[in-house]
């Protein structure tokens, strides 16, 4: 396939200053990559069309619950006129239009969006269904490996029916050398009272590009936990969008990242609160070393009608080198009075007292940096959900830190 430029990827719903260059991302797909969708999965194929069927059922239930409901536009045309006609931003106009349609499928977004979701779907073909039926507890592991000269993408529909529990681990690794692209595009449906946990750990060498695209739909009291760990790849793009539709639905997103060398890491989160008393917590924690670059866009959108909703986002980053670039834009959009939105970011540098302390014990600047990178990998090892992921972390760790494997093995023995 020829080279492609994917535009308008992971765009922020309400753009900020253009000159900040972070409203969206542009993904350059190198030329010559063949399309593949070659991944390992340890469960049987679920019911075909399960995601669309679940969404249609959710639409029916929602319509029944909301008979006679009309979405209250942020401004009427007359109000906008009075205010000079220009105050209604393009963003709000867009929201008003989509919300007024009351069409849940239309309001379902993917985190990367733009050209990226279409590209990933095109490469991957039909989505593989992972399913937990009503009341069932199920789990699945997926392993996506970099294939030299390929764009290797998994499309998954993860469907958890009412009262079910579903746990999915996705390992993205490059056990054999090569260059190319890996990716996943995942639609997640969490029905009423369903509990869904998705853990994705990426440990690619830096000759790979990784695209992580996800969209969530949450029913009443649905509880979704997303754990994302980004340790490798030359370029990583992560986009997550979610519709907290049902009453008291909750989404927790925990992101751990490590930037080293010349890596570029791009995160985009958009969580839309529609249901009453919905809650979300976006928590990111990372270390940036070398000349790595990280951009994080986090938007929590508290839509009119989401009374009692609460959203929170935090990004804690430690910059261990002067050469890193770190950009975080937290955005809380709010058209409802009875809601709470909080954001915080702490950016830590290694202070000169800390540097002197470490130096006084014999560590050069380079050794100190390596120590932070190692500590971050150790943490990922400890948190790894299964053996495959642990192995993947060790594989990358050994490339980045001398003796990493021995180090964690020792810790293992310690625990045993």
């Amino acid at each position: 396939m020829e080279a492609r430029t994917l535009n308008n990827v992971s765009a922020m719903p309400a753009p900020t200053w253009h000159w900040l260059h972070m409203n969206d991302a542009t993904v350059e797909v190198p030329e010559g990559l063949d399309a593949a969708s070659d991944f390992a999965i340890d469960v049987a194929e679920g019911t075909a069309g399960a995601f669309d069927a679940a969404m249609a059922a959710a639409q029916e239930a929602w319509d029944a619950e909301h008979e006679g409901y009309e979405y209250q536009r942020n401004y009427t045309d007359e109000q906008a006129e009075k205010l000079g006609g220009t105050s209604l931003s393009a963003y709000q106009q867009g929201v008003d239009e989509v919300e007024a349609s009351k069409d849940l499928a239309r309001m379902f977004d993917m985190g990367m969006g733009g050209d990226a979701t279409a590209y990933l779907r095109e490469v991957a073909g039909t989505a593989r269904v992972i399913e937990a039926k009503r009341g069932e507890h199920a789990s699945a592991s997926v392993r996506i490996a970099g294939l030299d000269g390929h764009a290797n993408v998994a499309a998954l529909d993860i469907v958890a029916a009412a009262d079910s529990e579903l746990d999915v681990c996705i390992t993205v690794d490059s056990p054999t050398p090569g260059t190319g692209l890996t990716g996943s595009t995942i639609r997640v449906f969490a029905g009423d009272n369903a509990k869904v946990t998705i853990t994705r750990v990426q440990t690619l060498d830096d000759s790979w590009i990784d695209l992580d695209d996800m969209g969530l739909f949450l029913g009443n009291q649905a509880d979704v936990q997303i754990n994302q760990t980004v340790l490798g790849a030359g370029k990583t793009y992560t986009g997550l969008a979610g519709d907290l539709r049902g009453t008291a639905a909750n989404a927790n997103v925990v992101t751990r990242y490590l930037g080293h060398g010349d890596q570029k890491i791009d995160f985009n989160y958009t969580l839309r609160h529609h249901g009453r008393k919905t809650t979300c917590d976006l928590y990111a924690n990372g270390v940036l070393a070398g000349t790595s670059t990280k951009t994080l866009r986090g938007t929590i959108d508290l839509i009119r009608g989401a009374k009692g909703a609460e959203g929170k986002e935090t990004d804690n980053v430690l910059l261990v080198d002067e050469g890193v670039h770190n950009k975080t834009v937290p955005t809380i959009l709010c058209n409802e009075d009875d809601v709470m939105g909080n954001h915080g970011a702490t950016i830590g540098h290694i202070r000169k007292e800390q540097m002197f302390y470490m130096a006084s014990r014999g560590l050069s600047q380079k050794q100190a940096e390596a120590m932070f990178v190692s500590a971050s990998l150790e943490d990922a090892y400890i948190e790894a959900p299964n053996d495959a992921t642990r192995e993947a972390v060790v594989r990358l760790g050994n490339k980045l830190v001398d003796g990493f494997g021995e180090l964690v093995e020792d810790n293992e023995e310690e625990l045993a």
Partner: protein
Amino acid sequence: MANETNPLLSIQGISASVEEKQILHNVNLDVAPGEVHVLMGPNGAGKSTMGHVAMGEPTYTVDSGKIIFDGQDITDLTPDKRSRAGLFLSFQAPVEVPGVPLTSFLRAITTGREGLDMKRKEFRKRIRSLADELDMDRAYLDRELGVGFSGGEKKKVEMLQLLLLQPKLAILDETDSGLDVDALSVVSHGMKLYQETCNGTLLIITHNTRILEHLSVDRVHVMVKGRIVAEGDASMIADIDQNGFEQFEQAAANAE
């Protein structure tokens, strides 16, 4: 190489300043191998500054003088090189390093050191036995360096590093301050262990004469306003304990 006649550490006419403000004035101080020296003086005299300058903290500018350690001029060496040459400074206020487990830190500081580059298993055993020796809960080894440690626990971690690194000379900056009776005897035990097992040389900065009771002190230096104003044998300690620093302050004023 240093021997009985050559000092291990020789601070020669050091003047140092921070942001144009001079703190140390022509400081001279020699410590011979195996000896125990004590540096005393009122708050703000410049004792910690001297320790940090000896270790090479870049915050301070050395305006004149030189520092010879183990026969080598280290005045222009970076702190990590001074450490690897065998100099150690226990901090009055140890810093916290979030994100780095104590064990990982200890592992990093021993890596590549001659005689200390142990196998992992051996290393584990070593730090656990040191923790036991210092009456430290082993659980601390897995916690982030200094984060949430009490003042006393931080000082124990300093002692642990002293015993792990086995430097030729250790400057202990108020390692005994803010400790309860039990912790004090642990630190005291640690100092003895350092002397016995590594043939250690000590420069102890303290306000507390109790910690010196179990040590045989060879020499006492008194610093006031950035100058060494008096020196003598161990008998000075009891004198200072009784009469304070007033007697030396006139000497410092005269020197200004």
